[in-house]
């Protein structure tokens, strides 16, 4: 019976606590759901832009004349300080857990994003499932202001664009903070971030008219990769090089590749890739380490404009050979860019050597940055055409006859 009395005592103290409670509470209509942060550099200060959702506009069924998102910009000495300073502008507290993108301006990225990443990974209100991106040739602030049709939240649009094109085009790569941090710390690897750019007129982008037209005057596009060395931006890979980069690393899930026919006037052949695997090997016997990369591509013929008889295995083998050459060229262009222009080991060849030959790696670890441009990379591609589509013969051939 004693126990019961104590139980009541405990229950009473719980009730007391309940009365004084609610410290971390935030009602849904007291928070501003932030979907993207843009970080610019202005005179040694951070210029932060947040893109905030206007929930009733996003989920309303009727057309309204108000935009689905708003942006707020503030300048401050540190990230956290600036975020707090934003409350002088926003009616509600900015809520950071639903961020989809972090956009760095090129200037910011060139100065180094290490400190920002430290803040982002430290602040536990932020989940770490957002994508890190760099805005090419423009301020991050302006990029966040571009309104997008179809997907009402621009950040969500960018997020899904990256996802879809990663799956279907494979020129870009979605980069999360955990990827970047481990590659940045590692001596034998460097990070890339997804590049964003606006095609069309950025001025028009922030107006509601941007989403009222069939063909939006300003569109956000993802097709390039920003290359970093340590935490600084050193340059860009263009679409081709980005694709080569993804082939080398085996990131390609599915894409399309085009090769001209023997007679270029006829047009070309397009392959639909459905599987690409890579193999990397390091060889440290010689003076400079050697790396060999081979990829194994399985594809289907998606489109044939040439006069070819695809029922003959010899013809198919010829196409395979042709594409193998194209893949090697693609990869080579990417390697060239990394070794010559950018001098940044974005492929993680250093880590590869580390994994394979840990003792050798210890001897060259410190000079890796100078060794990397010198290493010899042998590339090899193997293409297997598994399907030739539902028509066996190209009827282009019939037309010719």
């Amino acid at each position: 019976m004693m126990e019961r009395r104590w139980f009541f005592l405990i229950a009473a103290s719980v009730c007391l606590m309940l009365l004084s409670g609610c410290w971390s509470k935030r009602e849904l209509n007291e928070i501003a759901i932030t979907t993207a942060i843009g970080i610019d550099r202005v005179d040694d200060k951070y210029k932060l832009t947040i893109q905030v959702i206007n929930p009733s506009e996003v989920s309303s069924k009727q057309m309204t004349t108000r935009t689905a998102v708003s942006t707020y910009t503030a300048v401050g000495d540190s990230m956290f300080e600036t975020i707090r300073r934003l409350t002088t502008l926003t009616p509600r507290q900015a809520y950071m857990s639903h961020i989809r993108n972090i956009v760095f301006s090129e200037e910011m990225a060139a100065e180094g994003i290490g400190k920002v990443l430290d803040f982002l990974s430290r602040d536990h209100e932020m989940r770490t499932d957002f994508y890190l991106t760099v805005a090419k040739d423009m301020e991050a602030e302006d990029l966040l202001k571009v309104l997008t049709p179809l997907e009402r939240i621009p950040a969500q649009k960018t997020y899904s664009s990256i996802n879809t094109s990663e799956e279907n085009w494979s020129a870009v790569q979605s980069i999360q903070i955990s990827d970047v941090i481990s590659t940045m710390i590692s001596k034998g690897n460097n990070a890339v971030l997804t590049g964003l750019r606006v095609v069309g007129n950025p001025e028009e982008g922030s107006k509601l008219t941007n989403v009222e037209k069939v063909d939006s005057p300003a569109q956000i596009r993802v097709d390039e990769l920003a290359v970093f060395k340590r935490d600084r931006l050193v340059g860009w890979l263009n679409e081709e090089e980005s694709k080569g980069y993804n082939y080398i690393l085996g990131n390609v899930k599915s894409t399309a590749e085009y090769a001209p026919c023997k007679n270029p006037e006829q047009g070309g052949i397009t392959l639909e890739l459905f599987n690409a695997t890579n193999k990397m090997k390091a060889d440290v016997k010689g003076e400079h380490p050697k790396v060999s990369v081979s990829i194994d591509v399985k594809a289907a013929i998606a489109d044939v404009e040439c006069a070819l008889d695809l029922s003959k295995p010899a013809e198919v083998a010829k196409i395979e050979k042709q594409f193998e050459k194209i893949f090697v060229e693609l990869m080579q262009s990417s390697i060239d860019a990394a070794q010559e222009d950018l001098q940044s080991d974005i492929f993680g060849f250093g880590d590869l050597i580390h994994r394979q030959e840990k003792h050798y790696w210890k001897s060259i670890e410190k000079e890796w940055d100078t060794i990397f441009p010198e290493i010899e990379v042998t590339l090899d591609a193997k293409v297997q055409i598994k399907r030739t589509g539902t028509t066996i013969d190209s009827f282009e051939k019939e037309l010719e006859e």
Partner: protein
Amino acid sequence: MGTEKISAFQLFVLIVLFEMGSAVVLGFTFKANQDSWMVILFSMIGGLLLYLLFTHLSNYYPALPLTEAIVKITGPFIGPILAFFYIIYFFYLASRVLGDFTNLMQITILRQTPFIVITIVFTLMVCVASILGLEVIARTAEMFYPLVIFSGTLFLAFVYLDGLPDFRNLLPVLDKGWEPIFSTVFPQTITFPFGEMIVFMMFFPYLISSYKRKQVGVLGIIVSGIILTLLSITILAVLGSEGAKIVAIPLLETISLVNIQDIIQRMDPIVIITMIILGFIKITLFFYAAIIGLHGLFQIPRSKRPVVVISAGLLLIIITFLIGLEYTEHVNIGLQVIPYYVHVPMQLILPLFLVCVAWIRGRIKWN
């Protein structure tokens, strides 16, 4: 010892949950970089040896908890002092773990809530459990056991289904040789969480079939060791050793990355719920061990249990508040000072000493 009894299965469940307790939050040390998972395996073996030492010690007085066995072994002069040391030790561990979990709650889900409030709520649970007794604690653990195992499986399933792990992160094996592995194994991981099993010496007398304590304990350590190794490998493969080192709670970080087709996403509650349950079990066991020790040492009757528990609970809140407020300091002390100066003497040296004394006394008696 009253009529409270726990079954062998209940002991097993308690051991597994206990082992996974703070290990899930802080026990994963990634000091040995990509080889950290080996650290757990080796510590498990060391832990097994320690456990065999404990059961051997308990063979001398199987019907008595550790503190009372100590009094029997070392006599009425030193005995109570040593026993009291152990009570303080258990109590201190309870407050350390409580501090860990309070901090965890603060950095994850209750950012603005004051430290003391979370401590009080945790202590309330622990007090209620301690008043109700070991049998109820064991049954509660038995109820939560499937839940914990289920969430663990779910965690692994989601992470692997999403294709997050990249096993290249585990390479190269033995990058810096064996040295970093063994320097983390001893004394750090071997004492925490495996050496902490010494607390179960307080509960052996309650076991129905007490001859099973060796098998059950060994099985429990192996099972929990394997689970911990699996989790550790997964975390390393997902985050990479560098990534795992810098984040506060690697397990939570890993699950938060899961996003399968936008359907299965934001699975953090799985980890947080499991953590709270595991923390509760761990704190309760330490706390309850201290309470049993107090009862035995000062011969307090069972009917005074609530008074003892409530006063000890108040003390627990105060001590936790004092030692746990500074998180970094708290963690540092936990990883650098405690293993050497507290865990090793209490978990290894003293038990060895006791075994020796008991053995010598046994010899003398026989001759």
